[in-house]
């Protein structure tokens, strides 16, 4: 009994699926715009929490109360920075080089590009995991009221939306080339 022949190199650890949608000729434009919008929403969601925290000074609840118990500090910024670095790393890689079937000559370049792609995805996943960690350890476990756990939720939504933006940009950049390829043949 033998395994069915795969159409890829079985020594590869992670395969990069290049989904092929041909939904229209403006797909790439829409994808890029949508990715930019998601990116901006992600960062503004977190900056909203940061500004809200900076402005919730002494009289936040009843008058005569103490300062609010928790603020957005640099710890909250770290997951976002990781996600941003991962976003940059993923999008700075040439997509043809990852695919590797173009005959670039140097096979080690393909290997290196996949390594950097892995680093980028690991940074984004690390940002997401870090934001969930901050949410749980800093806000949920200390039983802060709803007003303050919002900071943690904003952090998680920043990471998730930045991941969505990367996915949309990836798909949007890959589809149009396929479409044009089919068109010219």
């Amino acid at each position, binding site marked *: 009994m033998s395994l069915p022949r795969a159409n890829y190199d079985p020594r590869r650890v992670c395969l990069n699926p290049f989904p092929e949608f041909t939904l229209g000729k403006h797909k*790439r434009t829409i994808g*890029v715009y949508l*990715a*930019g919008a998601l990116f*901006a929403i992600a960062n*503004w969601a977190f*900056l909203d929490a940061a500004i809200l925290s900076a402005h919730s000074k002494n009289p936040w609840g009843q008058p005569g109360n103490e300062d609010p118990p928790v603020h957005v500090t640099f710890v909250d910024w770290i997951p976002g920075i990781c996600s941003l670095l991962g976003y940059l790393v993923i999008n700075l890689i040439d997509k043809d080089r990852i695919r590797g079937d173009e005959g670039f000559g140097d096979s080690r370049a393909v290997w290196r590009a996949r390594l950097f792609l892995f680093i980028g995805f690991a940074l984004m996943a690390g940002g997401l995991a870090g934001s969930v960690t901050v949410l749980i350890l800093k806000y949920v476990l200390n039983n802060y009221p709803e007003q303050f756990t919002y900071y943690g939720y904003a952090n998680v939504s920043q990471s998730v939306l930045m991941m969505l933006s990367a996915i949309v940009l990836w798909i949007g*950049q890959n589809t149009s080339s396929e479409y044009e390829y089919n068109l010219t043949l």
Partner: protein
Amino acid sequence: MAAGLRTVILLSFVLAVGFLLIILSCALWQNWLPLLVALTFVLAPLPNAVFAHCGSDEFGSSYDSSSPAVDFGRFLTAIIVVTGFALPIILAHSDVINSKAAIMSIAGGGLVYGTILAYSAAFSQEESDYD
């Protein structure tokens, strides 16, 4: 395309109403931070205008100009537009500006940006009808 005098007058009227709303949202509450919205929406078409001439002069065969610079310009445009809508919401959320001022400045910014879009759509088709 015969986008005549009437279009220009209508668009300038809408632009004036948009700026009126933004300035009113600042002046009624003596808080001039919503004026940033006008600046943001005026800056919004700038990346597309700058990056539109990058890299698309190689062959001219690609209909949907797919150079990375053009994509980056579109990305920046989307970021700036969303920033223009998000800024008043965030400022109102943290009680820096009044929520009515936020609504007025968003409406005014939408009118200003819509004017810019309509103007470029109405008058750019004379020279070339790509995009």
